[in-house]
C-alpha cells in the first residue's frame, strides 16, 4: 500500500474533527427498535431525522416544568417560557451566524417560511407605498430552478399568478448539477427574486451559489436559499452565503416537527409588510387600524410552537456539541462509501452527482426497471427504510425521465454497515423481480 503525504502547512487528515458513531447512536432511542424482525436501518433522514434523547428530554421538560405562553405574562412560568423561547432563537442565530437574533423568524417549517416571503411580496405588490424591492407586477420575474422541492416551486407559481409576474427557472444538467450556463440571460434587471435550493432533496447536489449571488447583486434582485437539506448537514454561515433569506426546518436537524426558521437580513425583514395578522405581531390596535411590531415578532402572529422552538434550541446544542464539521465529514465518508457500494449493484443507475464532491449524503437511484415502490417494499421487509416516489420534486423525475426514484439518505447516526444492509437488500429486490 502506498501512502500519500499531505505537505506540511496544508490541512492534515487528522485535523478534521470526528465523533464516535456508536456513541452518537446511543443517544437516539429509536435506533434500538426492530422493523419486520430486523434491526432498523433508517436511510430516510432527508425526509425527517430522528431525535436524540437530549432533545426529547428538553421537549418533555418544557411541558412538565415551564409551560406557559410567551411574550405576554409577568408571572414566573411565563417568564421562564419566554426566556426559553427567546433563548432558542439566540442559539439558532449563533448556529447559522446570523448578525442579529432579531433576524431569526420562527415558522412552522421551510414551506411556511418560503410562503411567508412570497406573501410578503404579494402584500407589498398591493401597496403603492411599499418597498419597491418587494413589489411585483407584469414584466417582473421570479427565478427558481428545476431542482426545487415543490415547496420552492408552488408558492412562486401562485405569487406569479397573483401579481402577473413571470416565473423562470435554471435547468438541471445530465449530471444533476444546476445549469448556470444561461445565468446572465436568466437573472436580469427584470428579476426581483431568485429562490434556489442549496442542497437538493432528491439529487443530493450541493449548489455552489457564489456566481449566482454575484449576478443577483449586479441586477439588484433578492436571493432566497432553501437550506432545508444543508443546515442539518453542513456548517452554514448566512453571512458567508451572502443570501438575503435562508429557510430551514427543525425536524430534519434532530429537532421536533412543527418548527422551522426564516432567516432574513434585518433591513429586509423590517421593510416587509406583515403576512399573518393576530396577537403578538402588533404594536397597537384600534378598531380602525393597526400598526405592527418590528421583526421577528411581526411575522409570528399567534401563540408560536414554543416547546418545539425550545427543543430545536436543544437540537442545535446537540449538533454544535458534535461539531458540524465533524458531521459534514462523517457524511462525506459515508457518501463516498455508498457511491462505491451502489456502483457494484447490477442495473443500478444513480440520479445526480456520482462523485462525493459538491453533493451530500442523499442518493437517489433506479434499480433496473423495477418500480421504486416495489424496491422500497422489499427493503422494508428487511428493516431498511428508504423513501420511494417523486420526493416532492416531480420536475426532477421528469427531467430524468422516470415517474419515481428510490432514495437513501444519511445522517450523523448512519453507519457503513447500514449501507451494506441497503446493498444486500437490493440484491434481494432483484431476486424477487428478476
Amino acid at each position, binding site marked *: 500500500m502506498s501512502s500519500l503525504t499531505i505537505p506540511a502547512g496544508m490541512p492534515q487528515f487528522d485535523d478534521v474533527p470526528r465523533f464516535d458513531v456508536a456513541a452518537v447512536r446511543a443517544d437516539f432511542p429509536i435506533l434500538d427498535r426492530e422493523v419486520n424482525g430486523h434491526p432498523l436501518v433508517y436511510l430516510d433522514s432527508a425526509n425527517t431525522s430522528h431525535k436524540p434523547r437530549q432533545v426529547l428530554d428538553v421537549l418533555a421538560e418544557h411541558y412538565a416544568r415551564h409551560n406557559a405562553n410567551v411574550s405576554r405574562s409577568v408571572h414566573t412560568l411565563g417568564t421562564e417560557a419566554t426566556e426559553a423561547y427567546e433563548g432558542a432563537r439566540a442559539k439558532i442565530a449563533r448556529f447559522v451566524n446570523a448578525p442579529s437574533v432579531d433576524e431569526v423568524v420562527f415558522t412552522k417549517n421551510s414551506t411556511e417560511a418560503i410562503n411567508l416571503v412570497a406573501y410578503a411580496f404579494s402584500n407589498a405588490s398591493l401597496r403603492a407605498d411599499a418597498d419597491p424591492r418587494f413589489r411585483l407586477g407584469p414584466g417582473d420575474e421570479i427565478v427558481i430552478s428545476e431542482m426545487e422541492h415543490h415547496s420552492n416551486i408552488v408558492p412562486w407559481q401562485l405569487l406569479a399568478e397573483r401579481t402577473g409576474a413571470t416565473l423562470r427557472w435554471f435547468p438541471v444538467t445530465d449530471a444533476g448539477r444546476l445549469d448556470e450556463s444561461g445565468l446572465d440571460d436568466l437573472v436580469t434587471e427584470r428579476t426581483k427574486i431568485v429562490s434556489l435550493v442549496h442542497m437538493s432533496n432528491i439529487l443530493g447536489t450541493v449548489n455552489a451559489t457564489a456566481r449566482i449571488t454575484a449576478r443577483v447583486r449586479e441586477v439588484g434582485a433578492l436571493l432566497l436559499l432553501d437550506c432545508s437539506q444543508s443546515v442539518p448537514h453542513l456548517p452554514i454561515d448566512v453571512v458567508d452565503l451572502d443570501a438575503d433569506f435562508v429557510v430551514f426546518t427543525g425536524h430534519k436537524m434532530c429537532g421536533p416537527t412543527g418548527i422551522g426558521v426564516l432567516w432574513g437580513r434585518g433591513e429586509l425583514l423590517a421593510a416587509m409588510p406583515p403576512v399573518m395578522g393576530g396577537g403578538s405581531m402588533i404594536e397597537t390596535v384600534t378598531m380602525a387600524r393597526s400598526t405592527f411590531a418590528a421583526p421577528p415578532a411581526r411575522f409570528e402572529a399567534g401563540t408560536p410552537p414554543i416547546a418545539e422552538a425550545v427543543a430545536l434550541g436543544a437540537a442545535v446544542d446537540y449538533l454544535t456539541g458534535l461539531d458540524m464539521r465533524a458531521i459534514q465529514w462523517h457524511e462525506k465518508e459515508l457518501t463516498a462509501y455508498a457511491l462505491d457500494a451502489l456502483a457494484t449493484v447490477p442495473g443500478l443507475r444513480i440520479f445526480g452527482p456520482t462523485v462525493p464532491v459538491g453533493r451530500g449524503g442523499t442518493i437517489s437511484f433506479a434499480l433496473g426497471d423495477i418500480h421504486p415502490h*416495489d424496491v422500497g417494499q422489499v427493503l422494508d421487509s428487511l428493516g431498511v427504510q428508504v423513501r420511494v416516489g417523486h420526493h416532492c420534486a416531480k420536475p426532477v423525475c421528469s427531467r430524468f425521465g422516470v*415517474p419515481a426514484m428510490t432514495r437513501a439518505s444519511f445522517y450523523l447516526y448512519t453507519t457503513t454497515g447500514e449501507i451494506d444492509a441497503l446493498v444486500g437488500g437490493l440484491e434481494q429486490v432483484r431476486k424477487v423481480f428478476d
Partner: protein
Amino acid sequence: MQLDQLYQEIILDHYKRPHGRGLRDADDPTDRVAEAHHVNPTCGDEVTVRVATDGVVLHDVSYDGMGCSISQASASVLHELLRGREAGEAFAVHEAFVELMSGRGQVTPDEDVLGDGVAFAGVARYPARVKCALLPWMAFKDAAARAGVGASPEVKA
C-alpha cells in the same frame, strides 16, 4: 409480515407477463368507447383504462400504464376479470375487489368472483399499497361511467 403475502406468485406473473395490455379500438364500430386516466399523486403511478361497450356487455377493457408491480398486475387482473362480462356482473366483481382491498386483511375473498384477484388479499394488509391495487379499478369505474354504464364518475384521487 411476510413479503410473499404481498408479492404472491400470481401478482408477479401478471406484472411480468401482463394480460391484454395496450389501449385498443373497439372491434364493433357501434360500441361506445370511453377511457379514464388516473394517477396516484403520492407515487406517480399512472394508468389509463378504456372500455368498449354496447351498453350491456363490456366488449373490451383495455389499459396502459406505468407503475409498481401491484398497480400494473392489478390492471392485468382487471382486464382478465371484466372483459366480455355484462356490466352488472362486472360491477359486482368491482364491488368485491374494492371490499377486499378496504378490508385491512379481514375479508376472505371469493375465488369464484375474483379469480386471480384473490391474490391481492395480502395487499390489503399494506395500507400504503392499497391505492396502488385500486388505481386501475377506479379508472375503470370512471371509464365505464363515461361509456354510459355503471355509477357516476368519481373525483380523481
